[in-house]
């Protein structure tokens, strides 16, 4: 055997061993740990293993609104502290804080206070209307931008916490452009529950009930300033029927869930019903203590995402910072509520932009069918090649089988994800991979017809076809790479296997098949080439 033949044969062998090494974890799990630590099994996309692909949009405008609401609370407190007389403070157009005062002197005081306390606010307009003076303050564009950005990052962080507690293996959470968050949860068996867990705002608030409010007026839309109408959800224990009772609460939030230290599910022994026990941190406990002390005999509404869960009467001052949320939960609902409360609330509500969920049975179905198509398609191609090119066709077939082997190995090695369109890409590669060999064989036939000796025809055939193959494959690779760039889920999977397939087939069709020919032809003189 010549030296160059040894080198090239050796290279093919090394590639084979490497491919076998990277594919082993996919084929069997009985391997030493160092092996499986080095190479993962081939990642299957959600469409093949079942699971959930979600794109959520964070309502960032709401985050800006609540930022203004916080400023309003702070401003109110400051104005009271300074004994400045004002009529009202309100939020307008989402990003604007308006203080309405009675006279110029109060106006000047407000201006001075705001400049001192919130220098970043832009004072925009100054209008007089019906004898009052309106002072407008607006968040700066940078601050709005920062608030939005922070809301998305915060939401992502919170969701990550929730997913961790939910217990999904290998979840993916990524921020996409703008206010979108991409979430992939492989193998989730209860998609509705997962969506609820992820997307629930879980804004927990304690608000005092406005007992003196007239419920009929409130339901008709006539509300006193500073109060709002909410509904209390009641579940009848025996029939399971859900009723909603209107209840008027003060706008001002007495306490929020931000001050929670922990939340756990407990069982109420009277009705054998689960409830969620919450513990405040030290700041929260102190404030809870103060509020309950000041409001004994009044009702306090426990509000979660604008729904009142319960509104118990404060019988006595509560020190120690513990409370409970009850509301006829199932034990799973209670567990999930405890999870979201522990993980923290979302800074703003989210909506679902995109949801693709595949059940595990369908995924397995797809794999089975994909593999069946590969096998059937492969056998048909093999038959065609062997009939058409005889022994040389067999060489092409060996190259093709090695090609499939290398594609799978590269998928594992690169940590690429195999999707259903990806499987289609492999099937397509099988069809197109033989193209390179067809080109070479047709060239060899041409050279043989010109009366050249088999070995020379082989050499000339390979070298003449080489440039054609490179040009043809590079253009296809170009299309595949653009496809990858465009890459959304399923399309990306197709682009990945197509690109890998082109590279692998270049190697097997040009290089490996040549080595096989040389191996058989080197030591003998042949009169006829089976082609």
């Amino acid at each position: 055997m010549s030296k160059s033949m040894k080198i090239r044969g050796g290279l093919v062998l090394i590639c084979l061993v490497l491919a076998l090494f990277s594919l082993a974890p996919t084929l069997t799990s009985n391997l030493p740990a160092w092996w499986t630590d080095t190479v993962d099994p081939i990642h299957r996309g959600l469409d093949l293993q079942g699971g959930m692909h979600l794109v959520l949009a964070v309502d960032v405008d709401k985050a800006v609104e609540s930022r203004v609401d916080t400023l309003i609370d702070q401003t109110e407190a400051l104005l009271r502290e300074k004994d400045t007389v004002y009529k009202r403070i309100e939020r307008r157009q989402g990003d604007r804080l308006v203080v309405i005062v009675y006279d110029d002197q109060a106006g000047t005081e407000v201006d001075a206070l705001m400049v001192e306390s919130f220098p970043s606010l832009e004072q925009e307009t100054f209008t007089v209307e019906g004898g009052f003076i309106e002072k407008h303050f607006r968040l700066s564009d940078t601050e709005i931008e920062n608030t939005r950005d922070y809301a998305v990052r915060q939401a992502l962080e919170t969701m990550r916490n929730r997913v961790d507690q939910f217990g999904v293996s290998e979840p993916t959470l990524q921020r996409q452009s703008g206010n979108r968050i991409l979430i992939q949860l492989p193998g989730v068996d209860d998609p509705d529950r997962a969506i609820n867990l992820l997307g629930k705002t879980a804004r927990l608030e304690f608000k005092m009930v406005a007992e003196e409010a007239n419920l009929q007026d409130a339901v008709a839309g006539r509300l006193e300033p500073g109060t709002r109408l909410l509904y209390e959800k009641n579940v009848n224990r025996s029939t399971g029927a859900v009723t909603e009772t209107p209840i008027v609460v003060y706008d001002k939030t007495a306490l929020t869930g931000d001050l929670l230290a922990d939340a756990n599910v407990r069982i109420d022994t009277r009705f054998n019903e689960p409830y969620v026990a919450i513990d405040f941190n030290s700041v929260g406990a102190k404030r809870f203590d103060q509020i309950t002390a000041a409001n004994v005999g009044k009702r306090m509404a426990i509000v979660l995402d604008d729904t009142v869960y319960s509104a118990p009467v404060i019988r006595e001052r509560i020190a120690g910072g513990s409370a409970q949320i009850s509301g006829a939960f199932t034990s799973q609902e209670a567990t999930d509520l405890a999870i979201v409360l522990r993980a923290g609330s979302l800074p703003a509500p989210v909506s679902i932009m995109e949801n693709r969920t595949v059940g595990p049975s369908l995924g397995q179905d797809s794999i089975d069918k994909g593999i069946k198509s590969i096998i059937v398609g492969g056998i048909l191609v093999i038959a065609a090649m062997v009939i058409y090119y005889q022994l040389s066709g067999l060489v092409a077939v060996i190259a093709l089988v090695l090609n499939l082997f290398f594609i799978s190995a590269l998928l594992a090695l690169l940590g690429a994800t195999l999707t259903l369109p990806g499987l289609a890409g492999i099937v397509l590669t099988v069809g197109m991979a033989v193209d390179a060999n067809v080109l070479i064989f047709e060239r060899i036939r041409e050279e043989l017809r010109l009366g050249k000796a088999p070995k020379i025809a082989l050499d000339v055939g390979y070298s003449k076809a080489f440039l054609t193959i490179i040009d043809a494959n590079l253009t296809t690779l170009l299309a595949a790479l653009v496809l990858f760039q465009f890459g959304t889920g399923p399309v990306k999977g197709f682009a990945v296997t197509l690109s890998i397939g082109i590279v692998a087939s270049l190697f097997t069709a040009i290089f490996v098949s040549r080595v096989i020919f040389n191996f058989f032809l080197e030591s003998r003189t042949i009169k006829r080439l089976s082609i």
Partner: protein
Amino acid sequence: MQIIKPDTNIDFVSKRKLAVIVSALLILIGIASLVVKGGPNYGIDFAGGTLVQVLFVEETDAGTIKDVLSGLDLGSMSVQRFGDNANEFLIRVENSSGELKGLSAEIGAALSAKYGADQVDIRRVEMVGPQVGKDLRSKGIKAIFYAMLGLLVYISWRFEFRFAVGAIIALVHDVTITLGVFSLFGKEIDLPIIAAFLAIIGYSLNDTIIVYDRIRENLAKYNKESFAFIVNRSINDTLSRTLLTSGTTLLVVLALFVLGGGVIHNFAFAMLVGVLIGTYSSIFVASPILIFWEQRKAGKLAAQSQ
């Protein structure tokens, strides 16, 4: 074995006027169908909407399912049998919902209430909001545009500009006809179909490049012959390869089409049409364009010299 005898010399080039008519007819039929149906039939990836794939234990039919769901606010709805199972259905509705309890959950609940919870297996849910649909659509068009631009540059560099123009016209030809066939058959354009279109572009180009490569080689070899002769010679030289490769590719695409299952079915259909059209176009469209180009140039030169 040989299908094409070595000395085969079919006169493809002289039939180029006929090819123009055939191609124009195919394109016109496609465009007419697109116009009549008011544009491509976008699937939920591009139009937005909700799709639920349900497997029922008991036998049922599309009409009953529609009746069960008629009470919900879903917009226009289509229910069809899907895949290999007799009782598997694909429910597609126009509306989508950003709420946490989405339309798919409502559909699932309504079906479970009617058929019983253990009778209904929701195997796949896809919900795409209108905004995402719009984004995906513009991304898809951009992808096809950039792919063509890249190819134009590459072929101009490797060959000549006129070759690049010929190749691109052939590609536009292929994609337009495939799009027309999709419209004729009432099939939906989805994300995987865009992938199929780009695969068709890649495949058809592959075919075209191989003929062009031979033209480039033969231009040097037969420098005394007319350009049309050389083009025809080159098509014949590569004919055996063209047919064999198209054949093997069609075999596997056919395997996908028949065995690949519901989700892959339309993808394979696009590929099937694309491979056939792509093979036709690399023989009858991409190469003859070079001759038209040459003739126009010759005409111009003649006009100038007068």
